[in-house]
């Protein structure tokens, strides 16, 4: 961002700065409350989570996390007393509710699915995107503008509209509810973003470097590999993170095209229920674990954020 932004010969007065600062800080604090509430709820017990008035101070508990990772069955107090000493924090917490842990829940496998699908599709999208972006950036491709627009326009379709024929196609090909099917789909969605972003990044690398390398005896491919790629690493990394965030957060395709073995975390988390309704501490725990990686990425990406969210239309 540019260095000059005090929009008057006289810089903003101290008073106006203070007022602006106060409003922004207030907005930031209010807008972050829902997220803090998710975090707080994940450490509440189910009765505390539905107390009225909502509890701001409470005794922290790991029950939400225990419930998230386990399935439980109700037992009689006699049965529980007859068991040996509790084997861990979760065991102890669960027994207080007259229950015993029956086994692991589906959360871990769903989380792992999310990881595999997000990383797999990101790798493919960035790989294809880098090649195409280099092609569009350096060579005279006939109808380049039309092709680029075509690539972008695939992004304008409502996901449900795409999902109908994809659902039928995957059913025919046996790709329904498979990680491979989801990786292919997310790659196709993300590649448009990757091409547009990376073209911008590669356009900024002076052609002279490759030309010099080629005069020096490198082939075009070697020049691409040895001079362009190393200089595009920041751009590639930023693009990868944007693709990763999209694939990680995606819900519509995942909800419609996966149901079991390839289901990702977003369609799974809302289905976490306890006895008598939604188990909010467990949902909050799942949500917290799911959101933390994105928080980290957002902080890493802060400087490239603008470029990423506008498909490279706004650079600095």
């Amino acid at each position, binding site marked *: *961002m*540019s260095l*000059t932004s005090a929009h008057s010969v006289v810089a*903003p007065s101290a008073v106006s*700065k*203070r007022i*602006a*600062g106060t409003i*922004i*800080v207030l*907005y930031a604090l209010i807008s*972050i*409350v*829902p*997220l803090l*509430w998710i975090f707080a709820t994940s450490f509440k017990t189910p009765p505390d989570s539905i107390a009225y008035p*909502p509890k701001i101070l409470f005794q922290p508990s790991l029950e939400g996390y225990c419930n998230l990772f386990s399935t439980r069955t109700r037992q009689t107090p006699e049965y529980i007393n007859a068991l040996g000493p509790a084997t861990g924090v979760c065991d102890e917490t669960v027994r207080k509710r007259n229950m015993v842990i029956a086994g692991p829940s589906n959360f871990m496998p769903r989380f792992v699915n999310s990881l595999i699908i997000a990383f797999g599709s990101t790798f493919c999208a960035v790989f294809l*995107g880098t090649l*195409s972006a280099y092609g*569009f950036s350096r*060579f005279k*491709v006939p109808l380049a503008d039309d092709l680029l627009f*075509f*690539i972008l326009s*695939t992004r*304008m*379709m*409502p996901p*449900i*509209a*795409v999902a*109908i*024929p994809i*659902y039928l196609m995957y059913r025919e090909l046996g790709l329904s509810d498979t990680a491979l099917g989801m990786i292919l789909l997310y*790659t*196709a969605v993300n590649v448009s973003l990757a091409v547009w972003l990376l073209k911008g990044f590669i356009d900024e690398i002076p052609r*002279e470097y490759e*030309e*010099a390398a080629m*005069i020096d005896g490198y*082939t075009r*491919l070697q020049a691409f590999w040895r001079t362009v790629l190393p200089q595009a690493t920041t751009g590639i990394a930023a693009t990868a993170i944007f693709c990763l965030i999209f694939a990680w*957060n995606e*819900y*519509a395709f995942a*909800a419609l095209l996966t149901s079991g073995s390839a289901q990702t975390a977003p369609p799974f*988390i*809302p289905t976490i229920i306890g006895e008598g309704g939604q188990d909010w501490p467990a*949902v909050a725990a799942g*949500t917290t674990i*799911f*959101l933390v990686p994105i*928080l980290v990425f*957002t902080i890493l990406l*802060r400087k490239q*954020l603008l470029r990423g*969210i*506008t498909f490279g*239309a*706004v650079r600095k």
Partner: protein
Amino acid sequence: MTEAGLTMLNRTADGVARATPEPLARKVRGISDTGLAWLFISPTIMLLLAINIFPLFWAIYLSFTNYRANRPNEVVRNVGLANYKRILGDQDIWIAMQTTAHFVFWTILLQTLIGFTLAWLIDRKFRGHAFWTTIILVPMMLSPAVVGNFWRFLYEPQIGLFAYAISFVTGIPATQIGMLSNVSLAPWSIVIVDTWMWTPYVMLICLAGLRSIPEYIYEAAEVDRASNWRQFWSITLPMALPFIMLAVLFRGIENFKMFDMVNLLTGGGPGSTTEVASITLKRQAFESWRTGYSSAFAIILFVAVFGLANIYVKALNKVKQR
């Protein structure tokens, strides 16, 4: 220039000194540039053709049939334009379009107003502005589905934090604030969550717009003794306008397609008060299994987004050229 850059320059000098007849040398070394270009671009195009364009054509074909995906063995009949005619005469579809319009209009209006104001305030560069900007940006990076799902909890009439806060401020009993169950409040419940999530997006783009305005224009205005008010309306706003319009374009397309957050927050309910177009599409396609009918609706939606976006981009380019 970096060290690598300097070495590169030296190499260039060496290379030129050697003075190879270049085009010939390149041919000998392997694939031509055109070949390489296609080699690099075609995988992407092939993937998009397979996963986006082929299904699109399939959907166009299905939209002229009575196909139902839950009865794959039934004979598929060509019904011509019957699906399209029925959609245009379907009361429910028009109600869904109105719901979508309400959602898109209010979210964009609120996000633009609040987002621009925030950007304008942040541009004052008070102490700590970078930190607070990052905090404000967080909601838009999160999964709309997962966060939308959690908002159901915040909206709960008695135990939810939102209802509690509203009753705390207004004095209305918290039990009466059923954001998701009240027919007149539900359409606003999705507007509020979307505005909460995406105002930072508009803010970030507006901020880039404000920072792109060159200082000297303000200096000139100051020399001409233009008031701050006048400077805002004649310099700040017009010069930031292309950026604001870009943000509106992106949000407009996204919210027209809106599915995930609304599906988890209200599921289209109560009744069909928050049933935006994508929810109707999902209900028709994956609950009623009217595949042909819903394909026709999908095509209409796609053409609408595409057409509106194109008209809008033309307008945007005009504003930019001014």
